[in-house]
Structures are given as C-alpha cells and as structure tokens.
C-alpha cells in the first residue's frame, strides 16, 4: 500500500468514524429526561460542550449532592447532576463546585449563591399537597433557605371546618434558586413540590394584566 492510498484510506476511516460517531452520539439514550446541573451551569447544550467531565465539582461538593452521570446517561456520561430527592443542593455560600470547575461550564461570575438558578420549584400536585388540604405541614416553606422570599404562605380559610387556615405555600420564581431542599423534604411518597427547569411558560413575555395589578 503506498502512502497516497494509505492516506486516502485514512480519510475514509475518519469520515466513516465521524459520521458514525455523530449519529451514535445523537442516538444514545438517556436514563432521564432532564438533568439538573450544579449552580451556575450554562444552558444544557453549552454545558455539555464546556464540561470536560473531570469530576472535580463532584469531588468538592461537601454534601455529595452532585453525582456523576454514567454510561446509561448517553452523552452526559461523566457530567455532574443533582437528584433532589436523594440529596438536594444545600447552597454553600462559597460555591465550592464553581470554584472547582476548570472550565467555564459553571459560570465563575456567579458569586452569590442566592442568585443561582438550578431550576424553579413548583407545586406539581395540588390535590396531594397536605398543606393545601389544611394539614399543618408546610415543611417546604420552613426548610427553604430563602424562607419568606422564595416561598411564602398564602392564607385562606379552611373550607370545611371554617375555623382553621389553609397555609398555601407559594413559590416566587424570582427568588427560588432551585436548590431542591423543598423537594427533598416533602413528606409525601410522590412529592407534591418539585423543581423544574426555569425556562418554561411564556418566553416571549406577553403582558399579564392581573399579575401587573397585584404587584
């Protein structure tokens, strides 16, 4: 085989490898739909590009909140993620995960932990929520590190006894950091409060008359 032919063959290998690898990467399955990334993480696509899978943030997380994705997670292998129900983010004020990140996958300009935005908590199951049924639960409210800011209580009369109050936990997106402590602490088997990605709803920002009135 002469040199020219060899190089030609090499290019063929490269081309096949690239095309094959590309489709493989895109076809790889994932064990979960959404990955909740550490504080300050870039948007998912950019994060996947910028994270070099070194695992330093996982090592430096003092609470073992961050876990490395494994082979079942497809292209996310080796990236850090959070499962709130196991261990939520306890919002260390010195943000050791960001300090550990060698790249800018975690935004080094984030210095105030209260401004992080892993996601936003929402009450996903209003019928199951004990507080909304009048049980004095409100655990999510009391465990919230930003109590009275990220979660407040909206009070209504309990419609059956007429002498008790329903303390409804209300989440404020502007303050909620998505730390997931509420989701972790919810006493229900299937949590009634969950963290969901922040980007949702009306991105175009159409005008809400009533909301404007209230605020």
């Amino acid at each position, binding site marked *: 085989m002469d040199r020219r032919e060899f190089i030609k063959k090499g290019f063929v290998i*490269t081309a096949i490898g690239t095309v094959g690898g590309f489709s493989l990467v895109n076809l790889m399955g994932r064990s979960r739909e959404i990955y909740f990334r550490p504080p300050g993480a870039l948007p998912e696509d950019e994060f996947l*590009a910028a994270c070099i899978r070194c*695992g330093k943030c996982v090592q430096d997380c003092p609470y073992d909140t961050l876990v490395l994705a*494994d082979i079942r997670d497809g292209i996310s292998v080796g990236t850090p993620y959070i499962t709130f129900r196991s261990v939520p983010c306890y919002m260390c004020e010195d943000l050791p995960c960001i300090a550990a990140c060698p790249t800018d996958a975690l935004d080094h300009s984030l210095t105030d932990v209260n401004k992080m935005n892993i996601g936003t908590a929402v009450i996903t199951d209003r019928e199951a929520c004990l507080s909304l049924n009048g049980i004095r639960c409100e655990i999510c409210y009391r465990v919230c590190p930003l109590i009275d800011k990220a979660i407040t209580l909206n009070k209504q009369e309990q419609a059956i006894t007429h002498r008790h109050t329903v303390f409804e936990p209300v989440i404020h997106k502007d303050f909620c950091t998505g730390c997931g402590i509420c989701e972790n602490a919810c006493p229900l088997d299937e949590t009634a409060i969950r963290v969901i990605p922040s980007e949702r709803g009306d991105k175009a920002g159409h005008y809400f008359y009533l909301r404007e009135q209230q605020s």
Partner: protein
Amino acid sequence: MSWIRNNRRKILRRFVQLFVIFLLVSPLLGLKLFRGTLISGTLLGVQLTDPLAAIDFILATKAVYLPVLMGAVIVLVFYLLLGGRVFCGWVCPVYLLTEMVRKLHTKLHVFQYKPKSTTRYWILGTVLLLSLVTAKPVFETVSPIGIVSQNIALGIDAPQGIFGSERAKEQTDSNDRYADNFAGTTSDSWRVLFNYSLWILVILLLVDIFVSRGWWCRFICPVGTLYSLVGKLSPLRIRISHAACTKCGECFEVCVPSEVLSKPVRGEETWIGSSCTNCLNCVDICPEDALKIGIKHIKEK
C-alpha cells in the same frame, strides 16, 4: 538484593504510579496536595488540564478559555521535556492495569490481533473532528482514564463508599440507631460507587486479555497518540547500542508497545521511536546493557 538492583527502575516507576493513585485519594486523607482527576486537577494550587481535553474543549465550545489552555500548556511542556508518553508509562492508571493483565494474556494466549500502528493517528483525528461537529468533548465522555481516575477519586468518597465524606454523613445518614428505620432513602448514591461506566474498563481489559494485548494503549488511546506526537519533539529518549545488542529479544517480552523496538533492534535506528512510553523496562531487562537513556538533540533528527 540483586533483584532490587536489576529492577530498580521498575520499582521506581511502580512507586510513581502508586503515588499518582495516592494523589487521587489524598483529598480523603485531608491532604491539600491534589484535587481532581487526571482530566483536570489542581496540584499544589496549580491547575493542570489534560491537553487532549483542552483541545476537545476548544473544538466543542469554539471558544478559548484561558485557565484551561494554561493548564494544558503546563502539562504539555512537562511531557515535552520528559518524553511524550512518559504519561502512559509512569502516570496513567489504565496503563498500569494493562500491565497487570499482561501476564494473563501471555498465559492464555488465545489470539493476538494487531491493527496497523498508524491507525491511532486517524482515530485521534476522528475524535477531534467528532468533538468539533457534535460540540461535545467526545473522548472525555468515554475516556477510560477519566473513568478510572473518577472512580478512584470519587467512588470511595461516595456516601456509602469506604470513606464516605464526613459532612455528607452529617447531612444524610448519621450513623445512629434510627438509621435502620431509614435505610434505602438515598438510593441513587450507589451509582457513584459502582459506576456503570466501569463496564467500559472491564470490556477494555477483557479484550486485552483475549483478543489483543495492550490494544487500547498501543492502537487506540488518543491521549497516548497525542503524547506520541509531543514525544517526537522530546529530547529524552532511549538509545540502543547496536554493538552491544545480541538481538536476544528479551526487551520485546517486557515492552507494551513492542513495535517501537523492531526497527532499533534490527539495527535500522539508534533512537527508539516517539511511541515509546519511557517505561525503562527494557533498560532494566537488557542483559548486555545495550539500552540506555539518552538526550537526543533536535538536530539529530
């Protein structure tokens, strides 16, 4: 005693390899020497990054982030001086594992598949191209080096690992008598300890034993390939004295990328090629002391 004298380079190398593993677990012992893994780590406050990871990162993000670049340059300069693939022979834990199963392969010796030694340059090219088009650092996601070092550094530190970091215990499952009533609520944390990615390593070693000895390190690993390229410029090399060489072939038996020895032993070259990992096994074993470490001047090339 003579065994030690005859194997002193190998003992030193093993010591360095184990020291690397010690560095990986050192944070658990409360030492502030090293944090991180072999993809990126902080040694005595200096951030180091695997050069291939840095290149992948730049290709994937299409942007330059200085700290990464700096870390990679420091590493590159270091290996440039010491001989490119010194990383493989002295640092990489996957190489250590390959060496460990080597005897097993020899014993079973069922099959030996040997691809072309230049294929790995094309694989490196493919990996870099893939990183560019998929916008992901592709090699780092499957890198056995990353997986092994992550599992050493993080695995035993998982909540239910051997050490299980103290603060995590404070937070989740303090070792008290209520724990019984509470077992099984941190179900996801075992994923760290027995990471599924370790299967990649198992497959790697099985292929090594049954199909192709040292296949990963010799023919595939893009990190090793990159360092081979670096090694081409490196002054530190092994030199063969054709006068002393009796062509007994003992050096072939102890060399992992043994193809690098073919030409020098046949007398066609004096300096051993850049794919050599500088492991010095051959220097130790050569009964005639025909192999020596030497400084190759650039002009000699």
